[in-house]
């Protein structure tokens, strides 16, 4: 498998929700390579989460193409889309744990659905292994409402990694967390994806985290990618908007 081939590819993607508003995506071009950690940063309301929803097939572009491992999402029927989504693990901004299920049941859920060959004992073993990785083995029987924001994110990450996805997608993984917890989450995301050689596509406005863990960083502005660079290259960028972003975050 060519390691530089795109896991997710956006080509000229346009998306507009209403005619009296500016398009959210205005010709977005972006490649997420296999095995890389790619962070998409940008100001609030610039289309970061919409970009993710296009990658997952939760939204369809008005025009342009979104491909996952070479398959264009718009051409897939419901069943093919379901198969395609088996490649993904997703950590939602609000985590989206099933609030009627315990931590154990939440992580076991995708395993029970898609790994019918696994016995209940094997599922328990896998859940415990995942919880150990995110250092939450003692919370196994807790309900989501009993968890702090950081703990929820860690459970969400464990659930996202349960099926050993080829692509991990994280929507604002550290929003609302204190800096120490945010760093723990970032490190866990990096460790989890590197271990299984998965790709990770994160959207965030946390440039510190992006520089710390990303292989490449892209910045979105008014629905277009204005720069894609390595963290070092990104820091050296002279693009006025990038400079403004870096200065406001105290990076330069």
């Amino acid at each position, binding site marked *: 498998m060519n390691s530089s081939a795109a896991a997710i590819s956006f080509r000229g993607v346009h998306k507009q929700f209403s005619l009296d508003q500016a398009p959210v995506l205005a010709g977005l071009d972006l490649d997420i390579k296999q095995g890389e950690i790619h962070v998409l940063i940008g100001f609030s309301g610039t289309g970061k989460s919409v970009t993710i929803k296009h990658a*997952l097939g*939760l939204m369809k572009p008005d025009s342009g193409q979104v491909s996952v491992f070479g398959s264009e999402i718009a051409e897939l029927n419901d069943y093919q889309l379901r*198969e395609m*989504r088996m490649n993904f693990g*997703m950590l939602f901004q609000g985590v*989206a*744990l*099933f609030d009627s299920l315990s931590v154990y049941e939440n992580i076991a859920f995708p395993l029970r*659905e898609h790994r019918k060959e696994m016995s209940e004992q094997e599922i328990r073993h896998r859940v415990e292994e995942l919880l150990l990785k995110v250092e939450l083995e003692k919370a196994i029987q807790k309900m989501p409402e009993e968890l702090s924001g950081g703990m929820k994110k860690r459970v969400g990450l464990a659930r996202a990694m349960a099926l050993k996805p080829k692509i991990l997608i994280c929507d604002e993984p550290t929003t609302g967390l204190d800096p120490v917890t945010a760093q723990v989450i970032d490190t866990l995301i990096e460790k989890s994806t590197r271990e299984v050689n998965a790709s990770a596509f994160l959207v965030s406005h946390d440039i510190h985290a992006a520089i710390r863990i990303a292989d490449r960083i892209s910045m979105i502005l008014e629905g277009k990618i204005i720069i894609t660079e390595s963290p070092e290259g990104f820091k050296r960028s002279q693009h006025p908007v990038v400079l403004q972003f870096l200065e406001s975050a105290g990076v330069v």
Partner: protein
Amino acid sequence: MFTGFVGYIRYLGTLTLFATQSIAWLFVRPYRFPQFIDEMEFIGNQSLSIISLTGLFTGAVLAYQSWIAFDIVGTDSLVGVSTSLALARELGPVMTAIVVTGRAGAAMTAKIGLMRVSEQIDALEVMAISPKQYLIAPKIVAAAIATPFLAGIFTLVGNVGGYLVGVFLCGVDPGVYIHNLKSFLAPWDIYHGLIKSIIFGFVIATICCYKGYTTKNGAEGVGKSTNESVVLGIVFTLVMDYFLSVIIPTGMRSQ
């Protein structure tokens, strides 16, 4: 978005499409028996006490009011059959549908709506699980099956209430009460009500699930969807009741 007559037609089309797509998932593996059983328990079993209570008092008041009217013309022996007919053909299915809408339907909308606004439905989709298969189809099928059973219980308990009031309060002869009921109540009166109940259950669940599934704007949106689903469920029930009463052949009653 939907305005005027065309809007109503479009809305009906959207609901039909939603129900059809959800039901189509019933035939795709994995089959969702555990979810179906859970919904049957929630819609059916947990509604039993409220259905029995409302049924008892509906039958009682119906017997009492009809006795007042029949007594004027000296035909109070018809209290039993009039109560039974009204319960079996109209009040059983309609009142049950209203209770199911208020109790189970509102809960369905609120639960699905909350799952929608907290991205839990997106999470299901991303996990390659169809929310229509996992969440919606079991609720629609369970409601279509549970509602006629509940309507049957409502009618049965209502008849007990009618008998108690008719015989012990209004003084109708118990033998005459039962005799007239047996003579004039035909099996098709009961089938008529049960057929309507199946359709009511199906439509109510479809409306309530659709309202939850399309919820937007956080907690406020969940409240709005729940309110709309209850209002729509009751309005649809009453409007459909008229048309179904006309469509389901009355002539068969004589067979």
